């Protein structure tokens, strides 16, 4: 079944390449909103290649076909008290619960999206051990592997994380997974934005079991994960009030269901060095990732945001809504863009895989 799907996928890509027909790669469609508008094309469904290929909890390694629902992966891991450490977002349209979301694991990797645990545990790319892809020539290729240490060949498997399907259709991924922490607690601190950023960074420089942080509306929330004794010791050092609504808060933050994210106003994601001071004055903000991400709602001057983000050492993404014609992703320096174009041409010479979904190629 999986073999047939792969064979047909390769044929379909080869055929599209031969006729110069663009393909729009799609899993569950939960990230359709993400990325540049693209130049359309026939939809190439990835959900036909689904299922867990191998999962060895004692190896901390999971191999899964790209079309597998994220919810299914999370259930399998939870049964062994393990997790995807980068805490990926489903972005399933509400009301359906995350457990029933259509989000696929391949979509998560292609979009390179990580959740609240990212600054403390690592990003999706950090946990990718290997990928199987079908490149733009319709060839099925495997990079990396199912082992934790592997430096044979260029790290093409990690390159697929966040490439938005523009270099290949991901068909299978191997992840390093981690044990789920036995306990979590959320602390809340009433603080201004500047103080909250300063505090989050100070704590991150200490051996504390941090696993998430967010600031909005004058409150800094911090999540602790680990052994009960470790959490108790950290609480004693950090102070603050326990927020009983913690678990629901972090899920709502990850899924962008907090009130801050409601409505149709454009959502900008400013990725900055975590220690950058409060910026973008005059915009409603939510600060995540220990200061590393500042979300901004409402109409904004793309050029001004980008200039300010770049000056601070970061970059700006028009994450949701707004006018995509201003460019969704931060413009690349010419030296970088040159390499991007050549990589695209190498993996997808006919330019048929998700054309225009990232930049103009």
């Amino acid at each position, binding site marked *: 079944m999986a073999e047939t799907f792969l064979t047909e996928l390769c044929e379909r890509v080869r055929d599209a390449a031969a006729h110069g027909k663009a393909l729009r790669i799609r899993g569950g469609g939960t990230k359709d909103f993400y990325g540049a508008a693209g130049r359309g094309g026939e939809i190439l469904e990835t959900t036909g290649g689904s299922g867990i290929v191998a999962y*060895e909890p004692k*190896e*901390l*390694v999971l191999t899964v076909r790209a079309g597998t629902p994220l919810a299914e992966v999370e259930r399998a891991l939870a049964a062994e*008290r393990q997790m995807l450490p980068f805490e990926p977002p489903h972005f399933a349209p509400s009301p359906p619960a995350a457990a029933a979301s259509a989000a696929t694991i391949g979509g998560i990797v292609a979009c*390179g999206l990580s959740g609240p645990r990212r*600054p403390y545990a*690592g990003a999706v*790319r950090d946990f990718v051990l290997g990928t199987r892809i079908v*490149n733009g020539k319709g*060839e099925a*290729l*495997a990079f990396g*592997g199912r*082992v*934790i*240490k*592997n*430096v*044979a*060949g*260029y*790290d*093409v498997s*990690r*390159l697929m994380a*966040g*490439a938005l399907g523009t270099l290949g259709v991901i068909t299978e991924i191997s992840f390093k997974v*981690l*044990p*789920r922490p036995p306990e979590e607690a959320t602390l809340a601190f009433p603080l201004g934005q500047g103080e909250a950023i300063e505090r989050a960074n*100070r704590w991150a420089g*200490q*051996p*504390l*079991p941090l696993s998430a942080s967010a600031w909005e509306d004058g409150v800094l929330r911090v999540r602790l994960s680990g*052994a009960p004794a*470790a959490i108790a*010791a*950290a609480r004693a050092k950090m102070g603050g009030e326990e927020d009983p609504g913690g678990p629901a808060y972090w899920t709502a933050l990850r899924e962008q269901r907090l009130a801050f994210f409601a409505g149709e106003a454009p959502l900008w994601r400013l*990725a900055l*060095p*975590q*220690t950058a001071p409060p910026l973008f004055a005059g915009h409603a903000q939510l600060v995540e990732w220990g200061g*590393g*991400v500042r979300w901004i709602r409402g109409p904004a001057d793309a050029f001004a945001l980008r200039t300010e983000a770049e000056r601070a*050492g*970061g*970059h700006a*993404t028009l994450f949701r809504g707004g006018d995509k014609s201003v460019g969704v*992703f931060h413009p*690349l320096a010419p*030296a*970088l863009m040159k*390499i*991007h174009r*050549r990589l695209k*041409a*190498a*993996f997808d010479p006919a330019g048929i895989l998700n054309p225009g979904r990232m930049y103009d190629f």
Partner: protein
Amino acid sequence: MNALATEPALRARTLAALREVRPPLAIVADDEGLKPFETDAFIAHRETPMLAVLPESEAQVREIVNACRRLGVPVVTRGSGTGISGGAIPRSDGVLLVMTKMNRILGIDAAARMAWVEPGVRNLRVSEAAAPSGLFYAPDPSSQSVCSIGGNVAENSGGVHCLKYGLTTHNLLAVRAIEADGDLLEAGSLALDAPGYDLMALICGSEGNLAVITRVAVRLLPLPEATQTLLAAFPSVRRAAEAVGEIIGAGIVPAALEMMDRVVIEACERFMAMGFPAGAEALLLAEVDGCTEEALGDAAGVRSILERCGATEVRMAADAAERERLWKSRKGAFTALANILPDFYTIDGTIPRRCLPDILDRVYELAAEYGLMVGNVFHAGDGNIHPCIFYDANKPGDLERAEELGGRILEACVEAGGTITGEHGVGIEKLRQMCVQFLPAEIEAFHAVKAAFDPDSILNPGKAVPTLRRCTEWRGMRVRAGEIPRPDIPRF
């Protein structure tokens, strides 16, 4: 290019071009001066570079790369020369770009937990410089007191603490590099991600093939509050391997999980008299760290698992001095082994951890077939094995047999679902095994990646990725017998 006919003229032209570099550049052009650069730490392979240059700035690197590209002269970049797969072995028709003079720590930002360093900075110096701020740089290859950060990035180096802290690629924020066309490439970002493709992932581990690294932003981590170290003796490798699985299955991710087999145990015993129980077939060294409560709890958990899994003896370090003593068996293994036979060749395969006992049986079987002794020290937590093959460099044919045995072991790793290199890189050593691990279309994709960065193939050509022709026509590598270069560098 007809290299043979034009060599002296090309050398003169190259020398003249490099003398034009401003500010003036340290150039090594005499045979005596070039001698130390003939090899890295890869066994028994040497080549004298046409010229060696030691830049002190990014601007000089750019001019060197530009000059070499214009003249069609290959550039091989070298850090401290501790690589053991031959990635920095020079070419007789190329310039060796030695980065050791670019060795400044440009700044440590303690609040942001990061440091900008030049590529020639030694690995251990970063952690030493960060320690007063309560921070450290996690990747710790065995050669960390000598090896350079630039070399670590080029090789995506690991170390003994990868299971918990990751490889070099997990501990970088940004890399600045000079591309083959002289452009400055800035990959990664001081933010937690960067727009576009993850070019830093490609550069890390590219073995000097994609760009010349001139500056690295490394991520620093808070020093753990407490560290607990345990050493357990087992009556069989299988039992020890089971214990590793049980520890991880119990939800504990140790900072280090190292194993040594009987050959190594006996060597350590003879050399250091550690007093291990007679008949121990495997030693397992486990280290857990974190905040005090966590480290203590995990250590207690590890101890009870070790005992339940049949350890004949478990030692737990009560303080830092005892911890040092327990690590002595692991860190001193290199010296102890060198006492058995001075010449040995270290292999670097990775396998799914559950295959450990079987792969070791296979290693012993193959060793018997070749009539060579093999000792095993390895990162058991990662499934990264380092069989050490002993041979006598003075015995004709011994080295060739050792290398062939090494190749067979790596092929067995691939068969077991693993890889031919966990952390040492391909270099020139494992080109042949690359053809075993990858399909022609995958090898082609690697060449395409190389061409995207370096269309004229100026940077370290011929390393890391075999040509397809070579894969088809392989007849075995010709290697000259000789001494192990840099015998002082720990290799695993």
